[in-house]
């Protein structure tokens, strides 16, 4: 064990002096995470829909739409409202993309809505804001459905044979009662916890786990370097068991991985305001992730003929697992087959585990994700050990 520690200690010190190693393991992921968050963070955040209201009617029903329906939505921050004076102006605003949609309440709308004549309000949507237009249509549709419902209620309550012969007085009281009738279906808002990473956490997390698969190569792959340089033979000639050499190299990978990821976690929390969640949970995920990455890298190294091959195959594996695991494209949120397939990568489990920690969950919530990554580590280590023993045979 002492020999393994000596080898690991020497290797780690050697890597710490290598400036391009630090560039790859720390500077690059942090810089990219910072840049991606800066560029994409604000663009990905939803904004209130911007609507213009053109009230050509100025009657009570049109005003109620503004005060009872739209204003509360504006207070909740769901929409931003502005007034426009004409349908043409509203159309221009939607055309230029200055607003997402325009509500036009035509002249005579209130009078028509209160009679039994057809009445209609108009939504003009910007073609580039399909969801904003659909939301506007739903808001207006909801209001129109309420108005229609009153008509339906009055007509249905009159029973057969009363069409057209009902005194206005009776109609008015019926309508007033119908308006007062309660809506029989309520929608209760239940807020769900967000087990999702915000962009200030997602980008450092995804870059950290992506580059982790490169930085751990610095340990295991050096076994192949030592073999081609002939220093491995000298090591084996010394009173050092072969297993100690292997453990030392693997330990180097684990130390480099844990240290670089920890630095990234702390640096992103301090510099970018990343919310990683419960430290014990994050620690568990980092250790499990580093072990999985080391296992994968050891497996690749055991299959490669020389250090150069190990490096380039390792890069291919890291990039493919990263792509599938949702480092470049958030596949977990896209759903479907790709999301299920992504669970064969440690990357997806790492990000999912961090998601579970959002909202103040304790370290036990990451156990499934950490377990999956450890299983990955055990399998890859197992195969790699069997094969690497051959490399170490003198």
């Amino acid at each position: 064990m002492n020999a393994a520690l000596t080898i690991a200690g020497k290797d780690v010190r050697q890597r710490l002096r290598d400036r391009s190693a630090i560039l790859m393991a720390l500077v690059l992921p942090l810089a990219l995470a910072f840049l991606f968050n800066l560029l994409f963070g604000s663009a990905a955040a939803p904004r209130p829909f911007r609507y213009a209201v053109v009230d050509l009617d100025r009657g009570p029903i049109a005003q109620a739409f503004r005060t009872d329906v739209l204003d509360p939505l504006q207070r909740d921050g769901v929409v931003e409202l502005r007034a426009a004076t004409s349908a043409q102006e509203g159309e221009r605003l939607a055309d230029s993309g200055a607003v997402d949609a325009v509500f036009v309440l035509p002249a005579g709308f209130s009078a028509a809505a209160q009679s039994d004549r057809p009445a209609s309000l108009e939504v003009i949507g910007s073609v580039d804001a399909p969801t904003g237009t659909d939301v506007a249509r739903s808001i207006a549709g909801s209001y129109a459905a309420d108005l229609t419902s009153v008509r339906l209620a009055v007509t249905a309550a009159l029973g057969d044979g009363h069409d057209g012969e009902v005194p206005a007085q009776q109609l008015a009281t019926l309508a007033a009662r119908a308006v007062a009738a309660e809506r029989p279906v309520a929608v209760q808002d239940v807020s769900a916890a967000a087990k999702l990473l915000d962009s200030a956490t997602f980008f450092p997390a995804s870059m950290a786990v992506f580059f982790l698969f490169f930085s751990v190569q610095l340990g295991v792959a050096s076994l192949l370097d030592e073999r081609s340089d002939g220093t491995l033979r000298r090591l084996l000639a010394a009173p050092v068991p072969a297993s100690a050499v292997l453990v030392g190299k693997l330990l180097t990978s684990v130390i480099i991985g844990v240290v670089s990821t920890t630095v990234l976690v702390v640096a992103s929390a301090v510099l970018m305001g990343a919310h990683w969640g419960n430290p014990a949970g994050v620690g568990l995920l980092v250790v499990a992730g580093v072990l999985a990455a080391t296992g994968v890298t050891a497996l690749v190294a055991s299959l490669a003929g020389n250090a150069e091959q190990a490096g380039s195959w390792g890069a291919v594996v890291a990039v493919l697992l990263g792509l599938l695991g949702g480092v470049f494209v958030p596949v977990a949120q896209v759903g479907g087959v790709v999301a299920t397939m992504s669970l064969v990568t440690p990357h997806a489990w790492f990000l999912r585990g961090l998601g579970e920690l959002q909202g103040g969950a304790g370290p036990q919530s990451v156990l499934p994700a950490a377990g999956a990554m450890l299983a990955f580590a055990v399998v890859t280590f197992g195969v790699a050990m069997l094969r690497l023993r051959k490399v170490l045979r003198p």
Partner: protein
Amino acid sequence: MKVLAIAWTNLRRTLRERISLFFVFVFPLLMILVLGLAFGGSFQPRVGVTVLDNGPLAGRLGDRVAAADGIAVRAVASEAELVSMVERGEMEAGLVIPTGYDRALAAGDTATTRYIARAGQQGQQVGAIVNGAVAQEAGRLRAARFAATETSTALPAALARVDGITGRLAAVTVQTRTVGTADVPADAGRFEVGASSQLLLFVFLTSMTSSVALIETRRLGISRRMLATPTSAGTVVTGEALGRFLIAVFQGTVIMAGSALLFGVDWGDPVAAVVLMVVFGMVAAGAGMLTAATLRTGQQAIAVGLLLSLGLGALGGTMMPLEFYSPTLRQIAHLTPHAWAVDGYAELVRRDGDLASILPQLGVLSGVAAVLMALASWRLRRVLTR
């Protein structure tokens, strides 16, 4: 002819490594595939609906929500599963129609459904659409219940009566129309946007990272040996430049042809699309050569190359459409060659433009290419002849 020999050797050296074939050709096409599968087509917020009551009214409400415009609705079996999908971001929101929905309505009580969303604006916006669908059904139920009370009939009879009137009665309606020209036309394929952005991202990336070869050439003394032969520094520099450029164009051609054949990507006017790729290839070759002439080690070149090509690519709109940027950021983005090329492909692919309509973009990119090539040649000549 020596120029061509040097250039040809450069291209062959890159293509001989099987690993680089993966990063140069396979990976970009994979990215186009995944991006197309993930984001292709029009995006609609996803809403899960869990109907726990098996009464007819509950089923009807579920159908109403499923038919709502602007959301993609999927049935989810249990509430726990629905909540977990919303929490993980696999769905934007969910609606639970609880057991006892029909009974509550029949008894004259208020039936309460549960709308599940993560805190934030998107949940509220999707909520407006779900509320709209519920309001349609609630309006029908309210009218029927009012009539049932007024005429002392049972709810099912009153509902039948309301449904009978609905067609005849003049309703309050909403008319919707859209204005403006779409940023992305409705008939655009799901791989189109991804294809041109990945083309630009990877042509630049390859030029930057493959500049390692030029650094190796310098470090191993190959360039010095070339200069010892009757070959002028100018020839070596021109050959190296041509080599970088050939690699970029070869990669660009494979990505364009591959995505067209494999995923049916429509690149718009073929001549203009190729010319734009070639001009961008010159920019990329110039940037790669400048990197190789400036940095000392291959590892530095890989790190700087990755950072610059991913950074400029991100800023230039090859990872997220420029339309999503704020106006200021969009102006800053146009400091990168990527943004100009992205604009060019947008013109070709989305607005059916031709060579004439992308002349401004071609002009800017040619200028950038000329400056980069001149700088790189000057710098490379200096380090070679030092």
